[in-house]
């Protein structure tokens, strides 16, 4: 009972947040609504006993991706009025696309519930069941190839990003910490014998 109640609470906040993302005038508010939406979906996953995915969603999307996203949005000087110009113009098309997507998803769900016997409410996992452990054990066995390839995609993304953005500017002053640390007293300090009263060469 409590779980159902929680589900509806989270789900309704999620929908409100999702609507807020597209309806709010200020892009920063939109981004913050998106954060809320991510958080609520994580809560829904928690209810489905997918705690690893839920926590990782919060960790990666809320904790890192959206922070950087907010960075950019906050620093951009977005003309809100101009952004809203196309709103009514594209609304009918958007509604049609939304309707089509809803119909498609509904159809697939209906289809599965009709034809295939295996779609039933899953049993709650037994005590001591660790979602994380289970995921880890398939990620590193059955899906290890795809997992490694995904890491290659990430490596490639890094290489591509650096290729496109890094340029060596001439005259850049760089601090070499290793050199700074390796400095001896003799490199910096020179003791000069100073005979009081006579002139010294420096």
């Amino acid at each position: 009972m409590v779980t159902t109640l929680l589900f509806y609470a989270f789900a309704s906040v999620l929908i409100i947040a999702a609507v807020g993302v597209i309806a709010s005038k200020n892009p920063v508010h939109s981004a913050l609504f998106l954060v809320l939406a991510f958080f609520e979906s994580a809560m829904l996953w928690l209810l489905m006993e997918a705690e690893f995915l839920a926590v990782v969603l919060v960790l990666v999307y809320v904790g890192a991706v959206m922070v950087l996203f907010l960075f950019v949005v906050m620093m951009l000087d977005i003309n809100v009025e101009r952004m809203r110009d196309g709103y009514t113009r594209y609304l009918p098309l958007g509604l049609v696309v939304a309707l089509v997507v809803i119909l498609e998803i509904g159809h697939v769900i209906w289809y599965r519930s009709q034809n295939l016997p295996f779609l039933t409410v899953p049993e709650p996992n037994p005590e001591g069941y660790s979602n994380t452990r289970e995921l880890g054990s398939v990620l590193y066995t059955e899906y290890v190839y795809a997992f490694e390839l995904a890491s290659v995609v990430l490596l490639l993304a890094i290489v591509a990003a650096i290729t496109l953005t890094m340029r060596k500017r001439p005259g850049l002053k760089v601090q070499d910490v290793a050199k700074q640390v390796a400095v001896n007293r003799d490199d910096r300090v020179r003791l000069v014998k100073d005979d009081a009263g006579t002139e010294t060469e420096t």
Partner: protein
Amino acid sequence: MTALIDLLDRLIGVIGLPEFLHYVVLTSIKIVLVLVPLIIAVAYFTYAERKIIGYIQNRLGPNRVGWYGLLQPFADTLKMLLKEIVVPSNASPFLFFLAPLLSLMAAFAVWAVVPFSENFVIADIDAGLLYVLALTSMGVYGVIIAGWASNSKYAFLGAMRSAAQIVAYEIAMGFALVGVLMAGGSLNLSAIVLAQEGTSVLGWFVWPLFPLFMVYFISGLAETNRAPFDVAEGESEIVAGFHVEYSGIAFGLFFLAEYANMILITALTVIFFFGGWMSPFAGIPGLDGTFIGQSSFFWMAIKMAFFMFCFLWARATFPRYRYDQIMRLGWKVFLPVTIVWIAVEGVMVAAQIGPWAA
């Protein structure tokens, strides 16, 4: 502590609430049992900070309110409560007030999974370590929103600095925790502490994971925007950073969140690397069975106090890092160190060296 909880459990049982409400009431009492001491600890941590830094700098520190200034934190709190909260013009009022609450929420919520002794933890969940990571990463929103909603350049600059810093150091911190996870074999914080239970101090993870401990603790300093990584507040450059526009208790909440986070870092350091509530004198003949040789919350508090002292010590000792140096340290030093050590640890696990010898 356990006895107390049991007693409360039975007391509430007398009323005869339904099971669900019974659970809610009991958990609420546990939360109060954690948070009230925490808030008091924060209050006296600020007092300790001023005193200790005072002595380090050859001053006396607060000594007017109460005996040796002991009532100073309460005076400060009272002052903040009574002050007016000024909302800057053109600020976004809802977000402006949401920000300190978000900070506080993130700072307090993590304590739900922190085990204080073998049987006392509010929520003994399996994915505790992930929960800690996720919640600490939420804290940055308080900072960002505060900086943006204040409609002030100083606040915004401070927020940007601090957010970039937090995100950068979170990665090194997360990797350090991966090492702990490998050593502990579990994501549950209590299980991680229990995995360090050995014959003596040598079972603590700080020995095999020493580089990770260093990275974790220093990242903890950076993560909480403490000196020497406090460019986000940078008094000399941007006045006070993201909370420059906050006054009264709204500022007080940020303050509370920051110090609660610092105490949290010390608690987590103790749990992950220093055997949590384990006694350092366990296994020494003659001390076994006595209070000193026994694991208890007392030992956890002592260890936490030591690391809290280190926080203050660092603040009093080191000059502030420049911003690019902070980033360099996080990305170019800590990150490679953690990755290398995780690889080393992997080899140690595979070769059954160290605590992994079965």
